[in-house]
């Protein structure tokens, strides 16, 4: 039997892949997240070869290909070097739009940290100073969102 495939109703099948993971954060990442959780402090580290202070801290400097040992406590304030006010919604966003993503150059760091800004979006532009707003100690779990958001100063 020859079938004219153009005449066949195209069916779909719904499915989902949901795989649970338990990621080890690593020693350096753990130090960073523990400092957020226990001290409400942002820790970076510095490559002594190229003098770059990284945040989040890394075990190695990618551009020098060396180990990094020197940890640095960074300020909880910094300057916005890039931003976008998000207008669309999808389920993985941590808060409802509109909110903003920003690259934040924390005091003492040489690279930008990506995080969110929830309020005063009309005042947001590159160059503004922002300060980390930590969650209450009881709500902090050693997570990047232990910093609730950054707030424009």
């Amino acid at each position, binding site marked *: 039997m020859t079938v004219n495939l153009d005449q066949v109703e195209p069916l779909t099948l719904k499915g989902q892949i949901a795989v649970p993971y338990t990621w080890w954060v690593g020693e350096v990442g753990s130090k960073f997240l523990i400092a957020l959780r226990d001290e409400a402090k942002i820790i970076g580290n510095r490559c002594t070869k190229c003098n770059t202070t990284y*945040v989040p801290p890394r075990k190695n400097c990618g551009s020098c290909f060396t180990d990094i040992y020197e940890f640095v406590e960074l300020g909880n304030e910094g300057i916005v070097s890039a931003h976008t006010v998000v207008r669309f919604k999808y389920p993985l966003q941590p808060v409802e739009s509109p909110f903003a993503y920003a690259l934040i150059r924390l005091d003492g760091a040489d690279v930008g940290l990506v995080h969110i800004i929830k309020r005063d979006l009309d005042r947001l532009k590159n160059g503004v100073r922002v300060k980390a707003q930590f969650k209450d100690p009881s709500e902090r779990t050693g997570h990047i969102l232990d910093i609730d958001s950054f707030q424009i100063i």
Partner: protein
Amino acid sequence: MDNIAIVGAAQTTYERRKKDKTCYDLVFEMTKQVLEDSGLTLKDIDNVITVSNDFLDGRTISSMAVGEAAGAHDKNVSTVEGDGTFGALYGAMRVLGGFNTTLVVAHSKGSEGDVKHITNAMFDPIFQRFLGLEAITASALQASVYMDRYGIREESFAQVSVKNHGNAKNNPYAHLPMDLTIEDVMGSRKIADPLKLLDCSPVSDGAAAIIIANESYTSKAKTKPVWIKGLAHCAEAYFLGDRDLADPRSLRDAAEKAYAMAEITDPMKAFDVVELYDAFSYMEPLWLEGLGFCSPGEGCKLLDDGITTMSGTLPVNPSGGVLSAHALLVAGLARIIEAVLQLRGEAENRQVPGAKTALAHGINGPCGQSHCVWVLSSEK
């Protein structure tokens, strides 16, 4: 480098939803078409490279499911998980490494999964993924830095969208041919500032394939060979905050290497046509800067001066570019195929008259973390 050439090219039309075709169907069709285009048979194909992404296909080792569709039954088959330009680069390496021919086929059906979820998963799971970042918002951050650095206005990016969607009207394969004005783009729905709906590429379904052959084998093909004169890729830091997003240094490095191979010193003079990976409108001027067609910050001026329009001296994305059709992974291979059609003189309504040397470009990773640059020529 030994002389190698692209001797076959095929692509599907790009559209929002290919509801009557499975990924397997798309790969089979493209494999059949690229063989027909080249005049070769499967017996002539030494090895096969598939390009796919497990998250997009919703299955692990997605390549294994399309091997037979790619004609790889009982053949040497391997896979690149990344943009098609990188799959094609691996194919070129295989031919340079001793195979006579390599068939490269890429497919994706963004309509079947959820692309925002998938591009969120390209970010670091510990420090970034929980923030909900994905391709659009990451790119919006890049656009923000780029605008700020050089005082670029949103209207300049809008102009790219107008040009490319307009060019797409000449391309029967394009997903979104459109007559637009700058006002249309500026007034389109805000997505992630400064990006509006018409600054963003669509998610398309589609597939494409090419055949690369060594010099001795090119005469077996019926097509006019398109010679690979230079190709290179380069990557930079993974974390967005580590990079200067307004300075595509990995593109500069890749371009320099590809130009050196092709003995190109002045790209503006050397190239007749460019097909580059404009997933967002701002990317076209930024990548043109990285490719050395102008100084940093001058990318938008090329369009202002009319240089990159169809009637200009360096038409960029005559096909309508990625803004007008974006099948993930396939889009870079489509840039190569569009360049091939231009150099064969078969680009029909979008033909750049007399094009002899073309540049094709693809990206991988957020905000162009890595770039792949191809220099192609109709002359050996």
